[in-house]
């Protein structure tokens, strides 16, 4: 494992804190149900495009249901956390195919870089989130995001009748995006889109911890030829595609 400068500095800081602690004083670990997101994980997604059925919208429907995302009926103003994109490859003369596109939870997210209120931030486990309590709706992040993964909430919304209480609905005038279903990930479950894709029998999407060398996603990313969208931007996105 190569360590970047930040890691080395962090370890130096941790060592300094260790020295500063009075002898006999120990840092007490938080109880297991209260541990914060840890650097130990790096959540990522792998999409096998060859298995993605162009007619299937199971992931989109599951996302809307899980996260209480309303449809306003205006395509230019609708909120989308995940969408299907049709690709026509004229160079390689392939038949057109579709792929789901969502927030790529970049390692160096430009949206976080430009956010004036620190509403967009990266959690320690690499999930990029919007703290909607802080968002002022300036939409700078929407301009910065190369994946078009962010939406502004243009209209006030009401909680759906059989909504999911785990996920708050949205206030008008904030920006939101895919959260990798952070409330599920914290409970040890995969995001709703991945779960639905697995259950529907296509099994095109998969979710896991890239920092765990034993996890299936790590093995696949290591052994198969996977790509990310726009790797030239150097953002290190964490949604990998197979067969792109």
């Amino acid at each position, binding site marked *: 494992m190569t360590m970047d400068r930040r890691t080395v500095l962090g370890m130096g800081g941790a060592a300094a804190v260790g020295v500063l602690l009075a002898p006999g004083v120990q840092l007490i670990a938080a109880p297991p149900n209260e541990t914060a997101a840890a650097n130990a994980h790096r959540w990522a997604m792998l999409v096998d495009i060859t298995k993605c059925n162009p007619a299937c919208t199971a992931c989109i429907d599951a996302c809307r249901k899980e996260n209480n995302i309303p449809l306003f009926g205006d395509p230019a103003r609708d909120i989308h956390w995940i969408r299907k994109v049709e690709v026509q490859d004229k160079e390689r003369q392939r038949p057109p195919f579709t792929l789901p596109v969502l927030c790529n939870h970049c390692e160096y997210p430009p949206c976080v870089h430009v956010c004036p209120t620190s509403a967009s931030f990266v959690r320690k486990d690499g999930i990029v989130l919007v703290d909607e309590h802080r968002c002022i709706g300036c939409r700078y992040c929407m301009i910065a995001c190369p994946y078009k993964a962010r939406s502004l909430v243009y209209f006030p919304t009401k909680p759906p009748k059989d909504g999911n209480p785990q996920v708050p609905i949205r206030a008008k005038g904030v920006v939101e995006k895919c959260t990798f279903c952070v409330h599920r990930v*914290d409970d040890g479950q995969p995001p709703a889109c991945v779960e639905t894709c697995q259950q529907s029998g296509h099994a095109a999407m998969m979710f896991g911890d890239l920092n765990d060398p034993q996890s299936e996603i790590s093995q696949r990313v290591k052994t198969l030829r996977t790509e990310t969208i726009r790797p030239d931007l150097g953002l290190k996105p964490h949604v990998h595609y197979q067969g792109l």
Partner: protein
Amino acid sequence: MVLLRMVMIVLAVLMAGTARANDNATSDNAANSLLLANGDVRLQKPKGDACIRPTEWMRRNHMDFLQHKRAVTVREGARKRSESLLQCKSCHPSREQFCDRCHDYVGVEPNCFECHIYPE
């Protein structure tokens, strides 16, 4: 003059009588009023044994507590289910009769529930 004085006395007695009647009326309304006899706001009786923090402390600090929890949960990812906003309903089933009643009385409008779903 004597007559006038008599009239005044009769009027005063009548007024005192109506005042006492009014007192009776207020004691009848006390059961429906939003305030208890000691001046506290009448709230729904909680169902559980004890709150996650002492009641007196909660009364004074619940707003800062919730804000702190909010920051820790969203930004640090430290979810403690037992202290989640969704857990309040296990003891305080009705938002209208618990949170809102006091907030209306003191004229405070928290915006939590514009987005967060308080399960009924």
